């Protein structure tokens, strides 16, 4: 069970992600630079961290989505690898087409950093199996562009396929269908705007995010 964190020049939650993964998996993930063209061998999980990969210039995640390493990440995902994208990582995954939908400017037009209440919509995924479906959890958001935009038809399709992983109880950013996190069709790619890695340590005011990393640990052991 090997994991890696992709590091873009403007990533700023890469260390936070690595700490949370190390805490749950018992080993430090490999840090992979965005200019690399190939991934380390034998990876089970790739995490794309939060931050401002290329300063959010052009569009959030747009330049990162086309950087050399992302081709390898897409191949990895298409072969059934586990990929987790948080915040900017979610934006990057949408830009690469690994997840549907788009993240746009928050409806209130301001950056929002606060802890929000989410509902775990499904426990049927390698990312959420340690939660109960319907469980409320408190996880911080910190973004300017977290407004998940999807057509009504897409929201319905995601709902029908049980691909909505998390939803907001009090929608902070205008996201379609209150969606906070979505799964890929094979349920092995998750993108979410909230930051579970900031709630995986009791010193930081709560541990509601820890079960996500525990779910991954479980998935990787049983894999």
């Amino acid at each position, binding site marked *: 069970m090997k994991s890696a964190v992709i590091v873009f*020049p*403007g990533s*700023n*939650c890469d*260390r*936070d992600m690595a*700490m*949370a993964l190390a805490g749950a998996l018992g080993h430090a993930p490999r840090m992979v630079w965005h*200019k690399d063209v190939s991934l380390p061998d034998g990876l089970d999980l790739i995490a794309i961290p*939060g*931050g*401002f990969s*290329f*300063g*959010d*210039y052009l569009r959030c995640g747009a330049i990162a989505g086309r950087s050399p390493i992302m081709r390898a990440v897409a191949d990895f995902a298409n072969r059934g690898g586990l990929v987790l994208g948080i915040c900017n990582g979610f934006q990057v995954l949408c830009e690469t087409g690994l997840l549907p939908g788009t993240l746009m400017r928050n409806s*209130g*037009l*301001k*950056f*929002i*950093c*606060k802890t929000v209440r989410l509902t775990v919509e499904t426990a049927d995924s390698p990312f959420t199996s340690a939660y109960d479906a319907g469980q409320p959890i408190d996880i*911080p958001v*910190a973004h*300017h562009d977290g407004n998940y935009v999807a057509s009504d038809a897409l929201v319905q399709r995601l709902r029908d396929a049980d691909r909505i992983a998390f939803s907001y109880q009090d929608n902070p950013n205008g996201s379609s269908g209150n969606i906070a996190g979505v799964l890929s069709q094979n349920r092995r790619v998750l993108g979410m705007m909230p*930051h579970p*890695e*900031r709630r995986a*340590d009791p*010193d*930081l*005011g709560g541990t509601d995010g820890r079960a996500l990393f525990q779910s991954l640990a479980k998935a990787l052991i049983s894999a």
Partner: protein
Amino acid sequence: MQTEPEITAALVEAHGLKPDEYQRILDLIGREPSFTELGIFSAMWNEHCSYKSSKKWLRTLPTTGTRVICGPGENAGIVDIGDGQCVVFKMESHNHPSYIEPYQGAGTGMGGILRDVFTMGARPIAAMNSLSFGRPEHPKTRRLINGVVEGIGGYGNCFGVPTIGGELRFDPAYDGNCLVNAFAAGLADTDKIFYSAASGVGRPVVYLGAKTGRDGVGGATMASAEFDDTIEDKRPTVQVGDPFTEKRLMEATLELMATGAVISIQDMGAAGLTCSAVEMGDKGNLGIRLDLDKVPVRERDMSAYEMMLSESQERMLMVLDPEKEDIAKAVFDKWDLDFAIVGHTIAEDRFVVMHANTLKADLPLKALSGEAPEYDRPWVPAPAPAPLGALPPLDPIAALLTLIGSPNHCSRAWVYEQYDTMVMADTVLPPGADAGVVRVHGTKKALAFTADVTPRYCRANPFRGGAQAVAEAYRNLCATGAIPLATTDNLNFGNPEKPEIMGEFVGCIKGISAAVTALDMPIVSGNVSLYNETDGQGILPTPTIGAVGLLTSLDDMITMRPEAGQHMILLGESRGHLGQSAYLAEVLGRREGDAPEVDLEAERAAGELVRALWAQDLITAAHDLSDGGLALAATEMALAGQTGINLAPGDAGWFFGEDQGRYLLATETVDSLLTAARKAAVAARVVGRFGGTEIRLGEATVPLARIKKAFESGLDALTSA
């Protein structure tokens, strides 16, 4: 090749140089300066860079202590926090630029202070900001606060440093000059600190980071001038920030430092290339020769003058170990940043600037900083404040609702929710508490940060006001359980050429000195911002104190969240001092009386007792008393703990007096606490109890829900879309 303009008296004046200062230049170099040289002198000798009006008084500040590794004079101050680690911090103003262009002005203020910290080899771990705006109803205030807060967020969030505290105030005195004071702190190993002094002759001087443009040319000179109605013309002097480049510059700089290639380093802040090159040469007793043809530029046909005075952001200058040039270049290539050798160190005391094979400047380097003018400005003591007149009868609930719903005392959530307060995953006490606290990464230690000043006290009584700013910072740190370590000061005043303004400055400095001595919190870095005047109207004296405290274990951390059923203990002497209080200002609209007395010995005893009580498990929560006194502090604790309160009856002085050196504590063990306080000779008494769903002030009550609504909507008029 452009021809440089002729030096005329008007040109000299346009550079902010007084006739006698120009004469000093003529005497120094024995000839008329070139246009580029005039620009260099104006950059080095303006108030912003030379501290010519303040230096005499800054020298009197206590700056040393057992934990101080580096005091003022470098990019930031450094304080030992044990285990081979240190905290590197400073606060700096970006007032003038923020008033002209709030988003970019505030953002680049953040950029500048972050650079000061990582230039010394420290990774920034926390930021704060102290903001002062004009009246909420002033037509400019809304645009300024929105722009400034977004600018700080836009920069800091992208850079990736948590903003964990700060201040926000409104007063008509800031209608024409807002204040934006940015604080940053970083963490470094004590044996891996980098300084600016160049060493070794013939070593390469390397330019790093973003390219040079025309932005900010003359910015430092602008920042040393008063405003008038030509202010819109000054917009091009404000720099444009690029936090993404700053983030890369930090990573590349820290990575480069780890390779051992860096001999000395200086960021390019005010007066850019000029100031940084002179600084490195001056500190290292060396000359510098620059070849401007090598400087990476992003605009065509830039003159030597423009390049020397550009304040383009996200740039660094360093002296490199020539043998490690390839390693250094590889690091900067990795981060896609410009890297160019633009000159070298020389043995002679000269600052030589070449451009297009032409000598553009050849000046004695040490004289540029060492011979800068220094003034002993005349000053007069501040006049005694108007005595406190008779007060109308008190309606405690109405007063409380007014205070807690006022823009000056309501919730700051609208501000700090626009900042990433948690990035780096070490924030253990986010904004909204007495101080912000971040864990020292990978340890159980933590650092607490606060920024404080009460300008209305400083106007009424500069000495007390200066001392009170330090005392309140001390109190905020103690209330979170931290041991206060040291301070940084950001001294914002009006025009120092007016004796009464200079009197405020001198009084505040004396008060600060007394307090940092008594409370053992030396000043290790700082910044002075003068000429904060518009059309002759000066700001309130605003010496912002940024303070840092250490928690040797997270177990020492105290919050302000009480639980229902717990008793409320007031620590410290209450005399009911209402002069210059928030009650007087916000509820009665009056500015009268003296500032409260600051008993530094009592302050220290109370602070030490709070930490001791926590260590002995005798308290469950603590909060400092400041603006709004007992009633406001109790209500803030009620809001934090989501519980009602029942507070003993009294008069306006009881509920809203602002006597210093006081804390409100929550406890379940009243008797043991009172005994401990008696032993420490600190006044303590039970003043009420937490619980229920009402705020009860004596006989009068109001539902907590109504207070909460007022607290949370106080900024609505300014912020709603």
